[in-house]
């Protein structure tokens, strides 16, 4: 569903979170960040539903796998998830219904294209 420009970015690495946020914001998205799965679920509870989630796989407290399982069992199950991982366990992400899987380090164009398939940047959004 390409109806909103909000992207949720979940990664425990401060620098990856910061640069990805800068890039996505510059591309016209409204970005909300979370440091791990638990943080993300809390924010999903209180904020508007994002058009797409960009999810790291290896994280403290609640990792990508646990987050996907929990997400798909809850009210935000329909939000597409792009898994961004350097970890070999991408098969599991696919099994758990990840919309796309991008290997780290990603090409900037690949990341923007993937996000663009599920969310419309603000400058292109209908008035």
């Amino acid at each position: 569903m390409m109806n909103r420009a909000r992207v949720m970015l979940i990664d425990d690495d401060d620098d990856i979170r910061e640069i990805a946020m800068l890039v996505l914001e510059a591309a016209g998205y409204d970005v909300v960040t979370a440091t791990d799965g638990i943080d993300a679920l809390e924010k999903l509870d209180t904020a508007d539903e994002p058009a797409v989630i960009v999810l790291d796989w290896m994280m403290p407290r609640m990792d990508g796998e646990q987050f996907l399982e929990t997400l798909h069992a809850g009210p935000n199950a329909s939000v597409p998830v792009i898994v961004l991982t350097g970890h070999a366990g991408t098969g599991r992400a696919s099994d758990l219904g990840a919309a796309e899987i991008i290997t780290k380090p990603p090409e900037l164009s690949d990341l923007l294209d993937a996000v663009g398939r599920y969310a419309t940047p603000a400058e292109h959004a209908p008035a």
Partner: protein
Amino acid sequence: MRAFPQPPAGGTRIARSACRTMESSDREHQLSETVRDQAHTLSLLKATINATADGLLVVDTQGRVAEYNARFLAMWRIPEELARSGLDARLLEFVLDQLETPEAFLERVRELYDDPERESLDVVRFRDGRVLERYSMPQRLGSRIVGRVWSFRDVTERETLLRRATFFADAARLLATLDLEGALAGVARLSVPYLGDTCDVTLWSPDDRKKLVTAASYPDDTPPCHPNPHSLAGATTLYDASALSCLGVPLLVKGGVVGVMTFTATPPRRLGAKEQEVAEELARRTALSVENAKLYRGARKALDARDELLSIAAHEIRGPITSMHLAVQSLRRGLLSGPTTSRVLDIIEREDRRLSRFVDELLDLGRARAGSLGLKLEEVDLRVIVEGVVARHATEIGKSGSPIRIIGDAKCIGRWDGFRLDQLVTNLLSNALKFGRGKPIEISVVARGEQVVLAVADQGIGIAPEERERIWKPFERAVSPRHYGGLGLGLYIVRTIAEGLHGSVMVASELGRGTTFTVFLPRRSSA
């Protein structure tokens, strides 16, 4: 055969009488010779029976003892009076207690008596270790069976060697596995009844005798075994316990006792030198198997640790590379401009340092393992080092949410390696920030005479008691690397540096309440 003289045909009465007299005399003579021959034969038979090395017993079809020799009585320890009673059933009853498997022995005897034509060859095992070869065949008078002959030959030596060879071959097969528990259970089972009526194998951790690694016993309902203190000290021991004859054999690995094999026997059986000799060899082979299994586990663990290291290293390298990759591409595409450009350059610089630190950590691991950290001693103020580390990590401290408080003496001068001490404090602080859950962290630096004490205390997740030894080893961590990144070298390097400076480090922790690492350093290290 001798021919008798015939009377002449048509002779006189006298002549015929003379002939009859001669005939009678010859018959007496012949009878006497026959009796002599029989006595000779009987004597020869008796002498042969008594001179043979085999034990012989002849029983008639009515179950009466027809013949036996002295060797038979000696072999079966049967009193002469009992043998003279003449009843085979009484002899059987008398000998049963001496046998390893009396039921099987009796069964075989019954089978043979029920089938008089049958010949048989087998072995009979005694509880005292002797083995007799038993041969049995029918006694015939013409075509009629009138009894059964039993012949017993002592083949103890041959059987001992054969059984020992078979026993060790079976033991070798059981021990040629990495399933230590299964192997020990198999060895315990194999040892009964050969080395005792029960067998118990207990194995401890080489580092801690209170820590049971595994235990096996046969039969399964054998009561828990308390190994003999002498065996625990490394000596094979024959002893009595609660009317049982016992044998304790230590399992020795590189001179250290890692376990004990205990065999017991119920009277009248007594364990002795023969069992001891075999049990010692079995224990030697078992200990070798234990050592092999340990080496295999160690190798497997090292391979797993290496795989994990590679996985974590890949993760640790991919993080900064991802940031730099996105940063460089966004700059190249002109996606970012103005003040954000400066933020992106900061990110690139930070990631560059992060990668350098990572490489340094890997190199330090190699140096620490080689014992060559290359300490350069100089006059250093530990308080200044602590303050410098805290100042340098202001960004990370801010992000962690943990406020830092430095307490203690304003000056703590000593002769140390400033660079390595900085690394030690950095690792402890990073650890506290990582696991401190954003709660306050306190660093204290206190001088106590010739010693300085540095303590870093967080109020974080804490370390479980069983993990507190492991955290000091390289690539070990108390939590999953899936959840907390890093190579797991930080505390290993802390300990290496502390010990390199002739100091020490200890940890005190409570799960969910926090952890305090305390480093003790002599002011003047001679490193």
